[in-house]
């Protein structure tokens, strides 16, 4: 597990680091034309953000894996969780149409708001990354004793042969590897762990029109 972690993560961390360092060196050495400094600034900012998100994700993963992640359970509404996730995913969703399908009069769930919102952010990020990059749908609906939060995309969907592995830590789909889509391979495993800690579960299926639909089921407040 530890070696998988090092191998998978170090590559992902090194890429933005290389960009930031080379941009810094070019700026320091006066290689950058005046009209390009803004480009460089944006580049460093974006790569820095990418790096921060990764570090955040890794720390969350480490916390969850070690069972030391602190949770504060409280009653919270589905729409609040979704709005928070959408707000925090603003940069990712900049050019993406977000369709919302939220059932009315949903009961609250018992949840750690920050963790669940972060899980939804992971699902949203994946939907943009592995979908068509232009459209996602966020859903919330009652399923018995649970609220199901789902994120659907219009990408190629999950390879049926890989379906049972997608929630395993460090697993990355063949297509994602071939297409060089960046990823740590820990997001979905994190979502699964958090769902389980809440007494819930995760689910994945391909929609009739082909896109993937990932969901997280969280118990309603009793």
């Amino acid at each position, binding site marked *: 597990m530890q070696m998988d972690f090092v*191998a998978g993560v*170090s*590559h*992902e961390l*090194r*890429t*933005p*680091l*290389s*960009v930031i*360092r*080379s*941009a810094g*060196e*070019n700026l320091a*050495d006066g*290689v*950058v034309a005046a009209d*390009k400094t803004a*480009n*460089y600034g944006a*580049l460093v900012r*974006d*790569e820095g953000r990418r790096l921060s998100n990764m570090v955040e994700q890794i720390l969350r993963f480490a916390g969850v894996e070690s069972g030391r992640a602190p949770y504060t359970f409280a009653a919270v509404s589905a729409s609040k969780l979704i709005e928070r996730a959408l707000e925090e995913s603003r940069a990712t969703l900049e050019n993406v149409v977000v369709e919302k399908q939220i059932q009315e009069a949903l009961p609250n769930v018992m949840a750690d708001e920050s963790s669940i919102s972060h899980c939804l952010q992971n699902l949203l990020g994946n939907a943009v990354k592995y979908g068509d990059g232009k459209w996602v749908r966020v859903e919330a609906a009652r399923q018995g004793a649970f609220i199901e939060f789902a994120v659907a995309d219009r990408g190629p969907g999950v390879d049926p042969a890989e379906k049972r592995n997608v929630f395993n830590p460090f697993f990355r789909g063949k297509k994602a590897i*071939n*297409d*060089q889509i960046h990823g740590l391979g820990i997001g979905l495993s994190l979502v699964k762990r958090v769902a389980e800690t809440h007494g819930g579960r995760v689910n994945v299926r391909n929609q009739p029109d082909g896109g993937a639909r990932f969901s997280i089921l969280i118990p309603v407040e009793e």
Partner: protein
Amino acid sequence: MPVSRILLVEDEPGLLLTLTDRLISQGYEVASESDGESGLARATSPTEPFDLVLLDVMLPKKNGFEVCRKMRQEGRMTPVLMLTAKGQLNDKVTGLKIGADDYLTKPFEMPELLARVEALLRRAPERPSPQVFQFGTIRVDWKTAAVSKGGQPVELSAREFQLLKYLIDHRGETIPREDLLSKVWGYDTQMNTRTVDVHMVWLRQKLEDNPRYPEFIITMRGFGYRFGG
């Protein structure tokens, strides 16, 4: 000495930008591709030789190892410097075994990258001249000394052909009239630089679509000429 031409194959837009800027600032000519397939096509193109290929390992469509292996299989001996975020020993060994000349792990120090580039270029064989050079609709076959424009043969005198070759070999550079005279006509020539101008007019008449507004053979007022093809 002609400017060294480097092909950069890298899919990370940020690195493509910073590396291109840096290499250009060092006086190299840089072309780039962002996936393995187009990188291979460019690296093995018969009309566009490179002095060095900077090749990322993890590329979409075809990874850097495959690109390098294919290049070598096709007899392209252009030096290859592989760049990768994978630091494992296995990757280094694989890279070197399939014919890469050097290997650098990301994140790297820019001075180290530049030093390795320089070292490889020093060791590099003279880049083989391709048989054919093309600009606009004009095609120059070096072996047969045949020149055509839009598919129609163009008759050039031996001197005009030599002059064109010199311009193409030094494309992008501003060449003083005196240099053209001494290199194309010979050192002990009694001619004056006016001769150069006259030949340029003739070349333009034969090659340019509109000789009054030349696209390829450009006058650099007060200096000489530059080939812009």
